[in-house]
């Protein structure tokens, strides 16, 4: 595949993310019941199903429009903390995509960096707080470095997936400092973070759909 991606490919990314969320819905909810309020899988599944339905009605003609509609739909349908966090991430991707009709590797890295910045702005999370940040941040850093070194997007996204998965695994021993899990204190250690797990699926979906 050429090293640029168009709206159709990016739409496939969003749809693949929705499919992975559906496939992992019960797992996400189970992870969330250990340290949260047992609704992460159900809430994200409801939101991504609404996104797929909204995008099926009429296909967006630019990446920015695709991400904007995805973000707005998530904000309106997910609730809890993951609605604003994922919603903000996609809205920031929309802003970062600008008027572009296609994105190259550097653009994909740029929009994911914008998504990460949005998550930080909304959730005020830092490294090691046991949140989605801990998987998304290393994925973005890995993607940026690989793209910067001239790696093709497919290869760079493979590196990002491995970084996200390592970041997700690294949340297991962490003690949560954000969200409902933080009330558990030390008892939150020993479980992977549900948000880090779901955002890893976003990176996995990108590698599957854009590579």
């Amino acid at each position, binding site marked *: 595949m050429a090293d640029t991606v168009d709206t159709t490919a990016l739409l496939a990314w969003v749809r693949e993310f929705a499919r992975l969320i559906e496939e992992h819905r019960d797992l996400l909810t189970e992870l969330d019941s250990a340290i949260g*309020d*047992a*609704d992460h899988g159900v*809430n994200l599944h409801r939101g991504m199903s609404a996104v797929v339905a909204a995008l099926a009605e009429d296909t967006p003609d630019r990446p920015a429009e695709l991400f904007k509609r995805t973000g707005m739909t998530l*904000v*309106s*349908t*997910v*609730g*809890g*903390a993951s*609605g*604003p*966090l994922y*919603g*903000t991430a996609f809205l920031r991707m929309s802003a970062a995509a600008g008027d572009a009709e296609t994105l190259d590797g550097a653009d994909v890295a740029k929009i994911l960096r914008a998504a990460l910045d949005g998550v930080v702005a*909304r*959730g005020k999370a830092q490294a090691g707080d046991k949140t989605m940040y801990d998987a998304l941040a290393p994925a973005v850093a890995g993607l940026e470095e690989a793209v910067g070194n001239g790696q093709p997007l497919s290869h760079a996204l493979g590196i990002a997936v491995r970084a996200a998965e390592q970041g997700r695994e690294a949340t297991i021993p962490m*003690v949560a*400092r*954000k*969200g*409902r899990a*933080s*009330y*558990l*204190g030390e*008892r939150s250690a020993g479980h992977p973070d549900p948000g880090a797990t779901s955002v890893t699926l976003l990176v996995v979906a990108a590698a599957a759909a854009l590579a």
Partner: protein
Amino acid sequence: MASMKKLINDPATVVADALRGVAAAHPELRVDHDQRVVFRGDAPVRGKVGLISGGGSGHEPLHAGFVGSGMLDAACAGEIFTSPVPDQMVAATKGVDGGAGVLHIVKNYTGDVMNFEMAAEIVAADSGTEVIAVVTDDDVAVQDSLYTAGRRGVGVTVLVEKIAGAAAEEGQPLAEVAAVARKVNANGRSMGLALTSGTVPAAGRPTFDLPDGEMELGIGIHGEPGRRRVPIANAAEAAEMLVAPILADLDFSGGDGVLAFVNGMGATPLIELYVVFQEVNTLLAKAGVTIARSLVGPYITSLDMAGCSITLLKLDDELLRLWDAPVNTPALRWGA
């Protein structure tokens, strides 16, 4: 596992069905069933600061039961124990904007805070309505530090809604109403305990396991874990376990006394709340703290959880006057 016994039609429609009941029982209120917002019938009140709140359902009468003159102008109902979404808060804000700005009263939970923040950003982007948010965080069971999401908003939220509502009804401007709300939060502290877990209808089983003979001290209103589990105690001992950490956190002596609020979690009968209140009365007398006002009953509940919470609010002339001001809502009504 015991089967769930609830007077519902379908776990998926509990919130919508209850809002239809609210609309039928309280024709003086206006219910937007699409957005799940309960409004004062006369909203927006021209020239008055609008007060909105909202949160997950399952804590009734909070928040919709406090909609009416002298308290909230609108309340947004989320799914059970899940924050409402920004669209709801935007609809509520627009619907109560009488030209004097709108106060958002937000309980400190990660989801609630983020959704209200997004709503405020959306309102700022597409209207001239001034919005100030006040976050309640009075639960002393949570260590307030960099290592937690901060203290949870619990009982003091009811008192903020009443007292700030009275300030708005008097015609005070938005900045003053917000200052009063912050003062109530700053001078109030709470702690609760659970004897049994509540059951979320969609889950169909109790949120947490609490063995016979134990109680959870410092419970949150969504069943969040407390400080510790202790053997079940009598009312006198239980009251002391709640009052002592509150008194240790803030000096309640002097001034114009306190408002003592003994709240039921949903399944504990009023007679037990009065037994607890008497113990609180004794403990505060011993500590040299005067009870100037009281509130006893289920006002911020956790579905069918058994247990109670205690909230103390340090009063001054202003807070006393605003507390005593007329209020006319489904769940609090006096002087009106």
